């Protein structure tokens, strides 16, 4: 054995075979490639249609819109690559904001303590989602649909019970509010134009999420759990733990986004986030995530959110009838799915 395993030192041969794969093709196989093309096309398009769109002020506006979707699209894309959906992600944003709001303004709890409690609550919700999915083996679509409906009711019911209205407001009157506003809801001035700080958070979390997915062991486990859970289990990947962690990450981000909303506007509606869960999935899919799991990109998902934000604002700036916005998003989604399918075929069939 000693002799057979003594191998000649690997020659540092630059792999000339890699060069045979053309650059265009290598780019094409990247999951985020389609979304990047989409971003460029839509940016150029609306820049021609509207002066405001390409101005700094316009950019600040559409980046803001993109960031609310983008922040959630980050964990959702990880979750989808890990092979699951979270339909309750949207309402969880509401749950987080409402919980913090009610605890501070109605129950008089310290605002930091409230935020910690609401984080614990959200992590618990994420854990329940993940636990039920891994334990029952039922599709996460059904489990989180149940959670979505349950939370939707709780959000409205508890809010009405406590406040007699359908919103929680006046967070700005709570002691300690200003420091939180600086972190979550302030604006940064670039060249005299004010950009929401959420945009910065969005960029930071995109980098962290992408690093997590592509550079760490956990990232490898995410790909594996989504790609083939049985095979992963057989080689020792803790797929259940990975799945539960992903659901909890999603909830943690919902906590961040929900608290950002209530801190920024100092008020939050009980229905907030309903319907958004599908938008997050749309962003992730436009960004190259496969619905079947095992493939995708965090950067792609953020680019998908950027497309969403640009389109949403661009339609208004271009003086189009914004009623048609969703039609546009739907067409984008179909196009993205078709492109993804094509790319996956390229990726799995390889050279023949």
């Amino acid at each position: 054995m000693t002799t057979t395993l003594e191998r000649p030192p690997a020659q540092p041969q630059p792999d000339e075979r890699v060069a045979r794969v053309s650059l265009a093709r290598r780019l094409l196989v990247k999951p985020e490639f389609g979304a990047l093309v989409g971003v460029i096309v839509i940016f150029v398009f609306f820049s021609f249609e509207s002066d405001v769109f390409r101005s700094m002020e316009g950019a600040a506006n559409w980046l803001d819109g993109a960031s609310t979707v983008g922040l959630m699209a980050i964990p959702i894309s990880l979750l989808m690559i890990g092979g699951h959906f979270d339909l309750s992600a949207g309402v969880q944003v509401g749950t987080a904001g409402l919980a913090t709001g009610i605890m501070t303004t109605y129950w008089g709890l310290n605002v930091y303590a409230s935020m910690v409690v609401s984080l614990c609550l959200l992590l618990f919700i994420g854990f329940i989602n993940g636990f039920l999915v891994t334990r029952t083996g039922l599709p996460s679509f059904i489990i989180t649909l149940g959670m979505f409906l349950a939370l939707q009711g709780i959000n409205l019911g508890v809010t009405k019970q406590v406040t007699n209205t359908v919103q929680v407001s006046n967070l700005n009157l709570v002691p300690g509010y200003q420091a939180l506003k600086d972190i979550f809801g302030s604006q940064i001035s670039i060249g005299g134009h004010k950009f929401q700080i959420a945009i910065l958070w969005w960029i930071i979390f995109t980098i962290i999420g992408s690093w997590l997915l592509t550079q760490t062991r956990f990232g490898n486990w995410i790909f594996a759990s989504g790609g083939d859970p049985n095979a992963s289990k057989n080689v020792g990947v803790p797929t259940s733990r990975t799945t539960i962690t992903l659901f909890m990450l999603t909830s943690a981000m919902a906590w961040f986004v929900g608290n950002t909303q209530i801190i920024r506007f100092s008020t939050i509606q009980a229905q907030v986030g309903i319907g958004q869960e599908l938008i997050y999935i749309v962003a992730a899919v436009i960004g190259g995530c496969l619905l079947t799991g095992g493939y995708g990109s965090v950067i792609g998902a953020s680019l998908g959110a950027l497309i969403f934000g640009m389109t949403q604002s661009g339609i208004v700036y271009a003086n189009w009838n914004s009623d048609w916005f969703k039609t546009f998003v739907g067409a984008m989604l179909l196009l993205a799915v078709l492109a993804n399918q094509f790319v996956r075929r390229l990726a799995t069939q390889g050279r023949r």
Partner: protein
Amino acid sequence: MSVEVTEQPPPASESGSDAPMLEIRNMTKTFGSVISLSDISTTVRAGKVTCVLGDNGAGKSTFIKILSGVHQPTKGELLMDGKPVVFHEPRDALDVGIATVYQDLAMVPLMAIWRNFFLGSEPRKGFWPLKRFDKEKAKKITREEMRDMGIDIRDPDQPVGTLSGGERQCVAIARAVHFGARLLILDEPTSALGVKQSGVVLKYILQARDKGLGVIFITHNPHHAYPVGDRFLLLKRGKSLGDFDKSDISLTELTGMMAGGAELEQLAHELEQEGDTETSAIGHEIAADIGTGTTS
């Protein structure tokens, strides 16, 4: 990692004079009222290939799952290097050096070769919270280990889904060998492959054997088993039809027993009795095939 492997003493000398690497004694497994395996015994030695042959439903899968720690035997014991061992979960079997290469290869088609190679045992570098997957190391080792098995992979970044069946099998075997397997269990590695690819895989089995590993080769094809095997365990409906050394059994006998021996003989006999020349010719042919025509 490769250095560590080189420094390890050869498993053959480690296992002492005569104790087999793995001994299976009177193993029985029942699922409720279903007897999946009953009273199975065999041995696996370092540098030898033990073939487990059986048709569908013979209990081959249960056999593998017990050895790899997925199931626990109802009765009987496993001895590793002469010492009894109990596996509660797959990790336990891996820890003593039993690696199973599953039929589905435990690989994720959409993931790159190097990501698959280290799946579940990723090398890491850096400190928390910046601890990360050492990708350069993973790619380098993957390429080296594959070259050791005689496959020059074009690009470790290519998804496993783009490899041929034989190449995938090779990645799986190379992976098991790299992670310090002393005993390889190969679950029907040739069943989904063409003639040429099967030959390639049989060559890998011999290479693993020559490295001093013990190999359990599960198959239903005696023509694949006989050339590479040193010992043959035949299973049928959960029972052992025998545990033979290569010197005690010929390919014809092996094929005959695999094909259902006595029953085929009966069938051949019946066909011969038909009187019809055509059917009796088929009967003669079967008889010749299973070796009963000459031996009994």
